[in-house]
């Protein structure tokens, strides 16, 4: 049942560029799609292990910069030595971006072992800030605020056609969709396994988790690495589709966007970041021209506060709860309608 719904939704989404080939719409949806991959990655850490990372844009940015720099090639002098890196094939660069982001995820996961709660949150923020300052100031490597430009697009080998560059709006859209499906499946399978159960045990009751032999720190690190890796993939996707990146990708506000998506949709659910991501990814477009960007951000902030006050669990769990209650009521009405006699006998 769930599998069928999943395939139908994916198939319908895949048909979108055919049914509605509006390039502007496709680019808007693709941009939102990249943020949804990022939100899915944040949910891995926030939703399942319960650790709030407010530096998630750092993994996104590290993935983007690593992938862009490797595909462009760079030379930089380090401690007096000149390091020259020739441009690498774009997919090699992309995978390296994921690996480097994952390596930083390992580092942050290790740190989370030492500090928790508010401390962990602030550490992750600081981490993102340091990364942003490096991107801004290490001009030899990153071009600083001048941005990295002309980043090559990702490629695809198609039998009969040879290698093509994925530059058209539809190609970008399909690429982003594929990344979303892949990220979703990886997270779904991760969560519905012994690994996911261990992470959720840590979130729900760390003391109890330890008592039944779950080495919680190991799982925290595993989830941190996977979360950072997926965020790095989202960053790489961004770099090779937008094809220009600057240190802004590390901004706090991007992390906040991911957080709003996850919280609104429902943290710790598989569909949550997707639903929240669609809403908050497309909302700016709907509001564009209607209100000033500042007002739009104020609405964002207000919505965030209201959601946390009145629907802290998010849309998906609230909706599920409603469905469950409705079903229970229907079932009760059915039983109430049929055996009225039996009830009379009981009384």
């Amino acid at each position: 049942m769930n599998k069928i719904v999943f395939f139908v939704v994916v198939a319908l989404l895949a048909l979108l560029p055919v049914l509605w080939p509006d390039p502007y719409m496709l680019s808007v949806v693709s941009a939102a799609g990249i943020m949804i991959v990022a939100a899915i990655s944040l949910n891995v850490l926030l939703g399942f292990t319960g650790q709030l990372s407010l530096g998630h844009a750092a993994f996104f940015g590290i993935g983007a910069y690593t992938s862009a720099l490797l595909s462009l090639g760079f030379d930089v002098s380090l401690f007096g030595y000149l390091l020259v890196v020739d441009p690498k094939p774009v997919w090699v660069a992309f995978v390296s971006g994921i690996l480097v982001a994952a390596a930083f995820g390992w580092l942050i996961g290790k740190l989370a072992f030492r500090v928790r709660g508010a401390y962990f949150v602030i550490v992750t923020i600081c981490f993102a800030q340091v990364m942003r300052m490096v991107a801004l100031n290490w001009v030899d490597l990153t071009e600083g605020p001048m941005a990295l430009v002309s980043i090559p697009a990702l490629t695809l080998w198609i039998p009969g056609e040879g290698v093509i560059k994925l530059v058209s709006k539809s190609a970008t859209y399909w690429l982003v969709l594929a990344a979303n499906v892949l990220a979703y499946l990886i997270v779904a399978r991760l969560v519905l396994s012994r690994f996911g159960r261990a992470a959720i045990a840590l979130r729900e009751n760390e003391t109890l988790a330890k008592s039944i032999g779950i080495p919680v720190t190991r799982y925290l690190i595993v989830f941190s690495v996977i979360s950072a890796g997926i965020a790095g993939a989202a960053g790489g996707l961004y770099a090779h589709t937008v094809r220009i990146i600057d240190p802004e990708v590390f901004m706090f506000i991007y992390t906040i966007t991911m957080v709003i998506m996850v919280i609104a949709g429902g943290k710790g659910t598989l569909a949550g970041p997707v639903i929240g991501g669609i809403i908050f990814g497309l909302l700016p477009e709907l509001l564009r021209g209607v209100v000033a960007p500042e007002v739009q951000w104020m609405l964002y902030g207000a919505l965030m506060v209201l959601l946390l006050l009145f629907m802290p669990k998010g849309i998906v769990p609230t909706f599920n709860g409603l469905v469950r209650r409705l079903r229970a009521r229907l079932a009760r009405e059915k039983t109430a309608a049929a055996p009225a006699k039996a009830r009379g006998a009981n009384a």
Partner: protein
Amino acid sequence: MDQFLQHIVNALVLGSTYALLGIGLTLIFGIMRVVNFAHGELYAFGAYVSYALVSLLGLNYFGSVLLAGMLGLLLGAAIEFLLLRRCKLENIDEVMLIMIGLMIIMQNAELLLWGGVAKVVPTPFAQESITIGGIYLSPTRLFVFCAAVVLLIAFYLIIERSRLGLAMRATFQDRDAAKIVGVNVGSIYTLTFALGSCMAAVTGALLAPVFVVAPTMGDLASLKAFAIVILGGLGNIPGAALGGFALAAIEEFGSGYISTAYRDALGFLAILIVMVIRPQGLFAIKERVG
């Protein structure tokens, strides 16, 4: 050597204002367990009040600092009363996110109201620096330092000597026990948040003629306040004062001897290092993990 002394003087001036900023934040965390991301926005609020009063209405700078403090007090009380009181303050992450929402709202309100261009607040003091033994110090900065020290002492007296301070310290130690002995925890929360906000606003107003006033100033101020508080240990008031001076020294000497470009990064780097080596903070006596 002169260079070195100059850095020390600069660090002392900057540190005194950082201490004010950090103490407000750590007070709120220590008593209410609220990680106040909007703290920097109250700092920006104070700076804008000062700008509006001095540059637009032609009021005197000293009066503007006083008024900024009072408005900060009111705004803080309003935030606590209208927003924080509605959430149960149980889930620290949720409250943190609510404060981030507030931060976004305030920052963009400033942007909407005043635009993105930085504003300059004229100083009432002479522009020429005072020179003592080869060390330069502008009269404005000297005033800022003196005012900050006076405020720090006033704050110390409130906490250590007043009945309000006693109730605050009791709540800090044990909220439930304080309730039992008749402390009105609700109004302590309101007062705490108002006082912390007031200190942030005063700091912003004090520093308005020293730096420029811009909507993004709140972001960095929040993050620096966190750096200060982490260096001193979350919820540790004397630690926050020391943390303020420590961060100023790190930034001042770091930019003097290592790299100006990475000035702001050094503070964050310091936090990361402190977290790895001494998670409870540099000056913490007791371990407090949020």
